[in-house]
């Protein structure tokens, strides 16, 4: 059998790097948030910028000079970072890797006045995309969500950001207690009128260890019933589509071409380096035998101990685990089926070492195709003529190779139930 050209390409050309930098501090902890964020009376900004720069250098040394596709400043609240720190990190990354001409540099920001005042400085530092944590355009809801800004602050911040940055995204949370379908539709319409090219619309989820969880358990936080949750989700996609935004991932909507390239790296199961406290990474690195294998990296979570280790050892790496079958296949399935584009079967095999058809239970695949939860669709760029393949018989061994396996809207709606029965 002839080797697959794509396999050779994947093995030969190094994966581009998506770089994630974690800023672990917030002004206040939101009651729904389970991210690695911490509140300090005085944020030790200088120390943490220095530590991030040092760990980045350390990590880049072992990754090598690979193409750099994206940088993402996440948190916590990275808009609390000193802009000169952001500038230094961007300059470092550009020097350590081979930046692509279209390098995407995103920074998460909150719409409070302290941070919006620095937007121009962030732009000057090299940030070309801002993701605003708006969460709601309703003042009562914002208070309930523990946010420190008002709806008016939010609109003002978005207008400023739009004037400064070429690309703009913001987050909203829906399926909040007491929210109605009509109420959400109106709120979403207002939000979409603010002309962002990208939106993250999250259904409110009660995460373990958050204040909302305690309230939920005590019966003081009543979430909408499943059916309303499903209706809100479907409505969200419909409203977004009317405004020209496509649901390219479970909770992410974009104008064509405006998708978050950094986040796509996660969902397409590409390489990403995670720098900063608690950051995770997936990196293909040469193993002891010289063969490239996939590794999962994780950094110390508590900010100060992480910084101490970086200052001492150059890295706050807590663990590095080699991912062997079936782990990469399972991870790529659980990420890739979140995307509307689905999973490219050639890339799947190159990336995980397992054929897509061998990674799933054939009977359940058949059942999911029949039920309309999954479908085969031609790879983007493959020779046209197939159109969408779904509902009919499964593709033969020779045909699926040119296709992507994708969850339909109905399938994505039930992905957490679908995955355990589908994956082998």
């Amino acid at each position, binding site marked *: 059998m002839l080797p697959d050209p794509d396999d050779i390409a994947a093995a030969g050309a190094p994966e581009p790097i998506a770089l994630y930098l974690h800023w672990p501090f917030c002004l206040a902890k939101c009651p729904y948030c389970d991210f690695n964020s911490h509140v300090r009376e005085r944020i030790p900004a200088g120390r943490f910028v220095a530590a991030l720069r040092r760990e980045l250098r350390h990590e880049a040394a072992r990754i090598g000079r690979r193409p750099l596709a994206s940088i993402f400043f996440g948190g916590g609240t990275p808009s609390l970072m000193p802009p000169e720190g952001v500038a230094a990190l961007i300059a470092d990354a550009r020097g350590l890797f081979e930046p692509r001409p279209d390098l995407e540099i995103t920074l998460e920001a909150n719409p409070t006045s302290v941070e919006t005042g620095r937007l121009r400085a962030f732009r000057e530092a090299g940030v070309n995309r801002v993701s605003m944590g708006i969460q709601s355009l309703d003042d009562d809801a914002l208070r309930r969500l523990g946010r420190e800004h008002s709806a008016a602050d939010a609109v003002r911040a978005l207008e400023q950001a739009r004037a400064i940055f070429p690309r703009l995204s913001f987050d909203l949370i829906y399926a909040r207690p007491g929210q109605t379908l009509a109420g959400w539709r109106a709120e979403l319409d207002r939000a979409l009128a603010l002309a962002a090219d990208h939106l993250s619309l999250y259904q409110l*989820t009660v995460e373990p260890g958050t204040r909302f969880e305690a309230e939920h358990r005590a019966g003081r936080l009543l979430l909408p019933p499943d059916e309303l949750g499903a209706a809100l989700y479907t409505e969200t996609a419909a409203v977004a589509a009317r405004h020209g935004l496509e649901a390219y991932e479970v909770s992410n909507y974009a104008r064509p071409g405006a998708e978050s390239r950094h986040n796509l790296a996660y969902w397409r199961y590409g390489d990403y380096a995670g720098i900063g406290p608690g950051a*995770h990474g997936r990196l293909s690195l040469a193993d002891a035998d010289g063969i490239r294998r996939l590794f999962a990296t994780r950094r110390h979570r508590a900010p100060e101990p992480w910084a101490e280790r970086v200052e001492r050892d150059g890295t706050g790496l807590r663990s590095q685990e080699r991912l062997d079958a079936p782990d990469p296949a399972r991870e790529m399935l659980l*990420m890739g089926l979140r995307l509307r584009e689905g999973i490219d079967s050639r890339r799947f095999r190159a990336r995980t070492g397992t054929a897509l058809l061998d990674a799933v239970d054939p009977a359940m695949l058949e059942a999911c195709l029949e039920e309309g939860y999954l479908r085969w669709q031609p790879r983007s760029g493959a020779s046209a003529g197939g159109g969408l393949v779904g509902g009919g018989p499964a593709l033969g061994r020779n045909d699926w190779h040119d296709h992507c396996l994708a969850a339909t809207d109905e399938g994505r709606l039930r992905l*957490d139930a679908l995955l355990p029965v589908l994956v082998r």
Partner: protein
Amino acid sequence: MTDTPLSRIRNFSIIAHIDHGKSTLADRLIQACGALSEREMTNQVLDNMEIERERGITIKAQTVRLTYPAKDGQLYVLNLMDTPGHVDFAYEVSRSLAACEGSLLVVDASQGVEAQTLANVYQALDANHEIVPVLNKIDLPAAEPERVRQQIEDVVGIPADDAVEISAKTGLNIEGVLEALVTRLPPPVGEADAPLKALLVDSWYDAYLGVVILVRIKDGRLRKGAKVRMMSTGAVHTVEQVGTFAPAMRPVDDLGPGEMGYITAAIKTVADCNVGDTITEDRRPAGSALAGFKPSIPVVWCGLFPIDADDFEKLRESLAKLRLNDASFHYEAETSAALGFGFRCGFLGLLHLEIIQERLSREFDLNLIATAPSVVYRLFKTNGEMEELHNPADMPDGSVIAKIEEPWIKATIMVPDDYLGSILTLCAERRGQQVDLTYVGNRAMAVYRLPLNEVVFDFYDRLKSVSRGYASFDYAMDGYEESDLVRISILVNQEPVDALSFVAHRSAAEARGRSICAKLKELIPRQLFKIAIQAAIGSRVIARETIGALSKDVTAKCYGGDISRKRKLLDKQKEGKKRMRQFGKVEIPQTAFLAALKMDG
């Protein structure tokens, strides 16, 4: 030492309803005869098994040998035989009664006679017992000795003028009971020189001694070192130890006629010791066995499955250990598609089933699920063969069945007449046939014939709830009758769930099928695909429910930091699927079936 002349031996048992004071009275008698010091007295010496204590019931027969200096100046030996007090053990009760010449009928002076008492007192009368009525709790303000005396005469049909009035709790008039035993009960009869005839009353397993056999000597003498023969099996054993219960085991050289005591003979399991058997001497056997021997036959069966499949071997070992001490329950390995590996177990009745189940969980720390109890049906096939069916899942295709017979019982229910109406309705719903209905004061006694099948299906619970706990109930097996019975299968996505299939009368099939489908609909969580639940007789569907596909189940946020956590969750879910049973496209957690069976229980 046991050369007591027959004239100075009295063998007696105590008949009482639960809580009417049997064990307290026994304790007082032991105390009054000085058999135990105050320090040795734990409450209710006789009930030494934990479960027996908690429920106030006796499973194994036990005896205590008391010596009592009577008012006539003579020293008497009083052998108290404590008998199992429940209908499930009716045969065991009858053998214990056959070992005695008389009974104390203990009745709560405020509550009066209960159904269970009645069944036992009739058995005692059948065994030709002299009955001494004892009115207990006479010190309570609610005591109505005159009314209860009258009730005993009316219902039981024995004179109660000279009933002994006592309070076992305070010790009032215990002397009166002892004197009544000596003066009113007949002494045993027997021939010391005749060939040995000893009644095997009961047996149990002792970790140090092996099987201990409780015996009543009818004729002859039972000596240490003798070679004895079990007349039903012909098995021969050498007697290692002979003794009496004082109440502690006390070895003696021999036991003479009229006496009660124990023997050990290096016997490994109680399955070799049939209750009611006659023990004789191997060298000089008796010409005929004692009358009344019957092998014990299970009447109720159910499947027992470990909730954790890894416990299967432990369950097997535990059942073997229990059977060492209880030959009346049976078990055989069984495989269920829904519940995995387990055992089909046969019991003497529902209480027996419950006791074994409870002991398995308590003494052996096993987490078990029981399938719905089933009675033993007789299948008459078109080829002329008869087959006993004790697992509904094994019922063959209808075309090979000529007819089916089911066991009936005769039930006695006593209830305050306020609740009689609902009891009669309940019995009618359960295909009951009224045999008799009598009133005693404000209490009614209803005698019904009922199919046992209807009784194992939540009858007790319904009886208790419609009478607010005031009804008492007892039954005896009453033969087999042909019936229009059908097997109802429960199907999930067209596949049968063996553990849930059951046999019912055609008239009840639809309602019960509907109720199980409705229960399952509540218990089975929504899944990726819709689930059809059906109840069917053969290929005809009699009830159905549909569980729609779940509407939404997807993590809202999933980025680079979430992958490991999500993958580990996925790994765990895959692992959890080992506890799932696949029905077509859907997988049902075993817990849903377990819950359905529990609700049924």
